[in-house]
């Protein structure tokens, strides 16, 4: 039976108490979008359906009860923790949704320095966990740019990746076990073990589900020894992205594991490195870390490989180290960026894809050329590769455009979605993946069948099996 907004609120209040059900109109309106429609939020112009309520869950049992309630009445639920999503995953696509907010489940359950793993509730900020384990000389190894504001549940739900991924891997390489609640209030725990071969790896049903299958309540991640004193930084300038990709490939194929391996194109490099790079320079950079011997051997090996590319010119490592120390974005930088956008109507967006070594440069070149030619009012079109593997790498397109002649509510239709469309088309054409680490959200959901091809059968079956009523985050991953 369809419930009124008032009845939804009353039902939630019976589960968690009135104090933990937010019905303030202003908060609900602001929560109807995430950073995908940040221009609308900045100008307070909202077009998405307003959620019925935000419910602050404080326990796994409460989450289970909320999901049972939502299932009984077929109410759409949107799981969230830190709320830093960029691809529309937290948008309320249908009226009268319930946002289940896990940010109050913020207890670090256990830090086990012997078995090298830490267990925390979904609402623990990554920065808080990292700060705690650093006191023990350890690190999570996970450092996305959103580290100061993102929470563990959301990071696992969106299949996050961090700046040191080339050494530590993505979040999927770090999660050893977890707890999740499925529709119907079914609580599942996947135990923490180093590895097992007892059938399919069911962690991957949960990791990256973006709230479209379940709500993640607890995660256990690996820990690593932390040796910042051994970090070695390397930086180079060069003129051609193709060469940059070739260097990255050579480093990976020769077996080196730097924690950071990146190449920036001239446009993107101009935003970060204009104090040492010319305006037509690409910038290539590495960081090696770990025990002293490994860090040194890694840096030496990479330096020897890059020396084989005559086009690369070494720069003072202090440039790279200093830049890296200021890379993460906290609330202060986000607020400053919002103000810049409000004043200038110059909007910055990003879209990340991945592909094999044979294709990545062609995708970069083709997408960049098309966007410059087809999209009006572009002020910067660039990007960088920041996560490399033995068989390929990612491309993080970074672009700015002036919003001209349309209101904030039309920005996505006039600029953002057409750009995403070009990037997805050029990537799919060459066999790459249209999403490297931000998640599908609702922004790239229209391409999900093309992304998966015949394997869409597996994905679709998961949805039907775990969310038969279709109450989990409608429109995310699976388009409406």
């Amino acid at each position, binding site marked *: 039976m369809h419930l009124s907004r008032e009845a939804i609120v009353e039902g939630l209040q019976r589960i968690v108490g009135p104090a933990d059900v937010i019905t303030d109109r202003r908060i609900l309106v602001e929560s109807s979008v995430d950073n995908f429609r940040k221009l609308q939020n900045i100008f307070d112009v909202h077009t998405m359906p307003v959620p019925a309520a935000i419910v602050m869950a404080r326990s796994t049992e409460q989450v289970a009860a909320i999901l049972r309630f939502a299932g009984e009445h077929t109410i759409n639920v949107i799981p969230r923790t830190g709320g830093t999503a960029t691809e529309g995953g937290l948008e309320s696509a249908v009226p009268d949704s319930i946002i289940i907010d896990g940010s109050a489940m913020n207890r670090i359950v256990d830090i086990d320095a012997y078995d090298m793993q830490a267990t925390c509730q979904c609402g623990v900020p990554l920065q808080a966990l990292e700060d705690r384990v650093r006191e023990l000389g350890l690190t999570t190894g996970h450092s996305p740019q959103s580290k100061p504001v993102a929470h563990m549940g959301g990071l696992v739900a969106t299949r996050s990746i961090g700046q040191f991924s080339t050494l530590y891997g993505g979040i999927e390489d770090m999660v050893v076990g977890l707890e999740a609640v499925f529709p119907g209030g079914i609580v599942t725990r996947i135990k923490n073990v180093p590895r097992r071969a007892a059938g399919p790896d069911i962690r991957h049903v949960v990791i990256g589900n973006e709230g479209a299958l379940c709500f993640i309540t607890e995660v256990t991640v690996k820990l690593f020894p932390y040796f910042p004193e051994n970090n070695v930084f390397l930086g180079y300038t060069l003129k051609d992205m193709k060469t940059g990709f070739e260097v990255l490939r050579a480093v990976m194929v020769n077996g080196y594991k730097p924690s950071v391996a990146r190449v920036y194109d001239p446009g993107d490099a*101009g935003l*970060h490195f*204009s*104090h040492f790079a010319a*305006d037509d320079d690409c910038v290539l950079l590495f960081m090696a870390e770990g025990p002293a011997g490994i860090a040194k051997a890694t840096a030496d090996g990479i330096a020897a490989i890059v020396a084989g590319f005559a086009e690369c010119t070494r720069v003072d490592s202090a440039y790279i180290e*200093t830049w890296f120390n200021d890379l993460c974005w906290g609330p202060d930088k986000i607020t400053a960026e919002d*103000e810049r956008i409000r*004043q200038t109507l110059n909007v910055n967006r990003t879209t990340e894809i991945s592909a094999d070594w044979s294709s990545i440069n062609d995708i970069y070149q083709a997408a960049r050329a098309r966007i410059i030619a087809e999209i009006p009012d*572009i002020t910067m079109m660039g990007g960088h590769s920041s996560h490399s593997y033995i068989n390929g790498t990612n491309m993080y397109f970074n672009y700015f455009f002036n919003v001209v002649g349309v209101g904030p509510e039309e920005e996505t239709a006039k600029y953002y979605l057409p750009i995403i469309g070009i990037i997805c088309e050029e990537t799919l054409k060459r066999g790459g993946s249209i999403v490297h680490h931000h998640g599908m959200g609702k922004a790239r959901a229209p391409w999900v069948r093309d992304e998966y091809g015949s394997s869409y059968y597996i994905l679709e079956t998961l949805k039907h099996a775990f969310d038969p009523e279709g109450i989990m985050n409608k429109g995310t991953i699976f388009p409406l």
Partner: protein
Amino acid sequence: MSAVRVLVCFKVTPDFEALREADWAAAATQGVQTRYVRRVLNCFDESALELALGLSDAAARLGVTVELGALSIGGREVDPYLKTLVALGYERAARVAAGADGDIADTDAAGVGVGAAAGAAGVDGAGLDRAASGLDFAPAVVASIIASYVLRADHSDLLVLGCRSGPGDGGTVPFRVAEALGWPCLTRVTSIEPLGDGRLRVGAMVDDGLLRVTLRPPCVLAVGNALVSHLRAPTLKDRLERRERRIDVLAAADLGLDIAAELRREACVPTALETIDRRRRGAVIAGATPRDKARTLFDSYLSDLIETL
């Protein structure tokens, strides 16, 4: 009526917020090492540059031409900013390459024109950075360069610049330039509007509020905490269309100045750096419900403050 010729002076500074706390701690004995952090526009100058563009836009709507020029003092780190300004419609873009070791100029950068003395010096100034030029704590020398450029090269009749810039933050350059030019100077400027008859309506902060004055150039406007604080961005098409416009690079000698000698006369010399501890005491308020926390906040922290008001 004749066109208004505007010159905006700006400074490219290290992004001090990108420095680590440890860099400042070391600074007391070694001097602040800013070479490795990225460069940004001085925030007050960024306001000045955008206010001038707004003035130009508004004047065009009144049928008045505003000719915009931009001037900076420094090394090649300034050039990307000058190219951006050219793409945005600044018709004149110039850099004075002045350093503590004399006059240095670039000779190989595309689209860069070189003054006579700068060309004669023939030295590649790629490594020269404003932060290393000795001018950061030399407001008299900076003012001298700007005033000489206005009188000898640009002949502008409205000078707009930020009220101060780091790391010196002395705030005396606008006054010194105005004195050298013999022009009036209005400070803490927040808005500039054309009236269409050659006069300007200028808003400026004063201690009691906002002052609005009508004035006729020539004058110096020192921009303070304006609401307009970010420079607009040119499109790639704008950049392409104006990429052939040249940036003038001058040596101080082109302006009849001997910077080294002027620096020796400069009275302001930094001798020590003392860090200010701006940490504030904090507490996490405990309570079972938001109502309990609000009560604790009020009883423990706010009620006394309210009584004192």
